[in-house]
């Protein structure tokens, strides 16, 4: 009884929460151009203060870069073209997330491959263990244990 009320209450509460969360403000800016500029600038590393992106940096060069990005966007250049523009001049170094090609493939895909491999090994191991354990003959329960099990089952089915 109690459990039923509880689960209903929980569902209601979390349902409300989740409806509320769905109607959160969306990350859309009034000014989409500026948003685009930031998005691209975020992917470029500031040459002056190297720990920051061009977006976060207020160094003169970074400001110039942001203005250039804006100019290029107004001219109708695509994000890829703009990134390429900077890569041509500053080298691959300027991209904060390296391109998925050549040697960098090792960066992008090795961790994933290792994790996937580990999961497969684990699955194999689990299956083996499961087979082994199901092949073994179960030890019969003592009377005391049987009674306990039945009592528990009754309890569970009662709620």
């Amino acid at each position, binding site marked *: 009884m109690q459990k039923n009320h509880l689960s209903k209450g929980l569902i209601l509460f979390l349902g409300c929460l989740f409806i509320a969360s769905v109607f959160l403000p969306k990350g859309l800016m009034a000014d989409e151009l500026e948003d685009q500029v930031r998005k691209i600038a975020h992917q470029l590393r500031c*040459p*002056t203060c190297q720990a920051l992106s061009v977006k976060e940096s207020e160094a003169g*060069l970074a400001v*110039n870069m942001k203005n250039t990005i804006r100019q290029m966007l107004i001219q109708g250049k695509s994000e890829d073209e703009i990134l390429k523009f900077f890569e041509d*001049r500053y080298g691959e170094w300027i991209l904060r997330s390296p391109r998925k090609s050549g040697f960098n493939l090792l960066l992008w895909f090795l961790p994933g491959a290792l994790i996937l491999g580990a999961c497969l090994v684990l699955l194999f191991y689990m299956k083996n263990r499961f087979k082994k354990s199901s092949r073994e003959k179960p030890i019969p329960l003592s009377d005391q244990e049987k009674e306990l099990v039945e009592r528990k089952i009754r309890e569970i089915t009662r709620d």
Partner: protein
Amino acid sequence: MNRKAFFIAGIVISLGLIVIMIYGLFFASNPNSIPSALIDKKAKPFTATTFFGQDINLKMFLGKPVVLNFWASWCVACRAEARILEAAHQQYTPKGAVFIGIAINDTTADSLRFIAKYNKTYLLAPDDQLGTISLDYGVTAVPETFFIDKQGFIRDKVLGSVHFTKIRDFLNEQLEISGN
């Protein structure tokens, strides 16, 4: 069998890590230095108007070695190299070299004050509002100096104050002058 693989993996990872760290400590370049992507590439053409109204275009100087310097009046290291560049200009421009200084992120008034203070007389021009020339040359900080050969290819780049010997060696080679 399984356990052996485990140990081998552990040893490989540990060894790899240590080798990488040793490499990082003793052999890798300074993590803060940025290699230029433009060395041995054709220098990007640009046009500018000097503070004194002269129009310059890189094309005009094809066949002459060019020392292209990016500077700003607010930059400390630029003061250190100001006299060096001017001296080199006095010595080598008559022999056929070209010295260009592009001021970036600077106000005209400040630039002029700087020019007057150090008696700079070579081709000095401001970059445009967007910093087109400096971005075209992949400038990472001021001062930065590019060495462009007679064929119009970027041969070298120096970050920070440039030394006179560096300019001398480049121009002597380009102008086929022997000695100092």
